[in-house]
């Protein structure tokens, strides 16, 4: 890999925007890698967390936003908890996830994760609470061939145990929830994949 750096890039507006949302200057990170060292899913990432931070330091918007890392992140907060410089890598992951959606460059290889999140949120939007049955079917129906058979047995066993429930629980004031959604929509370019 070769990075051709330019003055414009290493001081880019985008980098400042990341820092604004992160509430920290990325130059504080000295790349000690303690975040990656403790990350439970680092083995799944091409760019471990410290590398993601590095990409931001260098102003590499594209590599950063298109990366899989922020989607593989489980959000266990171990990195931020142990960061010796308090640059909050976990928060960086959140920032990159939101930016990736706004810019419409969510990494397609992790569509399972992304779709599940979206199915979850649409179920939430519909009822104000999560209706697991609905959520699961919504998720599976997004790509039935691949996901249909997954967890068949587990699913059956769950039902035997009366979980998940068949009837949705709903918030009385679902309208309020819907309006929350409207007001907190990420502003995104036209070509972005829709959230539901």
């Amino acid at each position, binding site marked *: 890999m070769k990075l051709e750096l330019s003055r414009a890039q290493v001081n880019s507006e985008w980098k400042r925007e990341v820092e604004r949302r992160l509430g920290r200057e990325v130059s504080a990170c000295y*790349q000690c890698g*303690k975040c*990656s*060292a*403790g990350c439970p899913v*680092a083995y799944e990432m091409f760019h471990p967390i410290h*590398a993601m931070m590095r990409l931001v330091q260098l102003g590499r918007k594209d590599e950063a936003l298109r990366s899989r890392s922020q989607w593989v992140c489980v959000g266990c907060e171990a990195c931020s908890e142990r960061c010796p410089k308090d640059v909050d890598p976990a928060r960086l992951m959140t920032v990159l996830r939101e930016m990736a959606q706004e810019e419409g460059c969510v990494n397609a290889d992790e569509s399972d994760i992304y779709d599940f999140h979206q199915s979850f949120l649409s179920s939430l939007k519909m009822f104000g609470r999560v209706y697991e049955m609905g959520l699961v079917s919504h998720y599976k129906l997004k790509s039935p061939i691949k996901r249909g058979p997954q967890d068949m047995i587990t699913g059956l066993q769950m039902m035997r145990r009366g979980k998940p429930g068949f009837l949705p629980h709903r918030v009385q004031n679902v309208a309020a929830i819907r309006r929350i959604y409207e007001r907190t929509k990420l502003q995104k370019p036209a070509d972005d994949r829709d959230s539901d």
Partner: protein
Amino acid sequence: MSRIGVFICHCGENIGSVVDCPRVAATLAEHPGVAFATDYKYMCSDPGQNLIKQAIDDHKLTGVVVSACSPRMHEPTFRNAVAEKGLNPFLCEMANIREHCSWVHTDNEAATIKAIELVRLMVEKVKSNEALEPIHVPITKRALVIGGGIAGIQAALDIANAGNEVVIVEREPSIGGHMLQLSETFPTLDCSQCILTPKMVDIARHPLITLHTWSEVEKVDGYIGNFEVTVRKKARSVDLDKCTGCGACMQKCPSRKILSEFNAGVTVPDPENPKKRLGYRTAIYTPCPQAVPNKPVIDREHCLKFTKGKCGVCAKVCPTNAIDYEQEDELITEKVGAVVVATGYQVWSVAEAAKDYPYIGYGEYGYGTHPDIINGLQFERLLSASGPTAGRVVRPSDGKVPQTVVFLSCVGSRDNEKGFTYCSKICCMYLSKHAMLYKHKVHEGQAYNFYMDLRAGGKTYDEFSRRTIEEDGCIYLRGRVSRIYPRGDHLVVQGADTLSNAQVEVEADLVVLATAIIAQPDAEALAQKLRVAYDKDHFFAEAHPKLRPVESQTAGIFFAGTCQGPKDIPETVAQASGAAAKVSALFSADELEREPMVAHVHRAPPPVYSHCFGCFFCERVCPYGAIEREELRDRKGNLIKTVAKVNEGLCAGCGLCAASCRANAITLRGFNDEQLFAVVNAIGEQ
């Protein structure tokens, strides 16, 4: 009518590029009382100084204002220059138009105007300056060295060998400090004790050196050349004159399970008898066989005689009746002319709680509770021939030889969140030494070293650490460790190698943490006693980071070694010799010249005698007890009144008295009311 000369320095571009120096000179030339004003590229250069000297002759100057850099930089330079022309040096002042003007402002016009005003202020001050004569005070040619580590030892020997007396105060039972605990030393791998113990013996034998071990500095009074130090000699419970150091007492002492400070608290199973552990000390003890003095102390915290009131075995077995349970702390005073502070450092502990200094500790490393997670000093003891294993490297938990050892740099160092912001400086090198020595002792073993930056600046240092990598096959991994946890009888070290962008996991038998080098917990307290400054991490602050590295802000007090900041042995020794040289230079004169900026109480011929009416408020505020009482009598000897008088030897020139005198009878030379009012008055002029 005063004839002041004004000299504006360009300092090359430094001032010239922002301040319009010719204009400043021109403006000041018009100022009342200024006989001559000019500007020049480098006033501090020879031609610059000659320019000033020439002007003094040509214009019969009665005062000089050099407007250039900070007086903290060049005031002495210019005062000497004018002195060479027979003008009293204290009639020369500096206006700081570099640090306080050209370097901090960008607007040339504003900066130039500010410069003009700053110079004007000083001109007005100099107008009312008075010729002053330096004060001469006697010097006690005897130095106090606080701390008997390598820094203190080196400083003491150098001073004594220059022919002056030295008093060493060491709080431990023996001198030697941390260096005595080390195995071999980087980068030459010579045995630490072999090179240190001869020096310790020299100390003991030196006719000019007095040694107080098991003692601490209680109080420091006086000033450069004339300090009076109170030393607390802690009750040793052993009569040093009677004791021959035969060691019978230590042989027989029943309390044998006390963690040894000398072994940094590390103990290992006894290969002969698995139930026993090696590395403890007894309640009556010397830190090690090479101790100086090689005479024990009784640790009253643990001694049964003092805790339970019974035992007394040591007294029974002592052939010379040297044991004295009744002994009490003793306060002695030493008069000295200079003090070298060489109190050293401590290694940080990752344990959870600590009163003395703020830190969180490393929960992810189990707060150092696992027996096989040790710190660098403890590993030194395992490597050292004088250690509990006589140099065999084994695990504290089960005494097995560790086949895999992991070393961690920067534990507490460079960690804003859990430790300290600074770099401890020596860890990179000693860890590389540790890995090398380990490999020399355990040939089939494998060492890993987690580091952030490999800092091997120093003569043959980099070659040394490369050897560890290239010849001894230590694997260096660039990254911090996130977590260490036990699995079976191994330790899983979960780290990262940022060079391969990978997470790495090493199953280790022993983990060595290079914990931060930190200031002594009581450094702050000592600093207060000595009236020296210290930084945010409680290391003592030198007078100037580059040009006065061994001096404190307080005249006559010098620093040596790690009490001033993390250093390795060569640096420490160099600084100690530097401090010793400063002391010897100080002692080379019989009298000491001090700036005459001291307080002075008004005196006048009868019938006034003095404006002072003897309220002695000054006496109350003076931090130095420099105010004395004088009885003023008429010719017949009748007492007129008792008034204040300043002991110029003790007065440090803070001016507290002057500012609080109700009768304006006491003033501070060099900063008297007339001068300061003149300056404030000049504020008005635009």
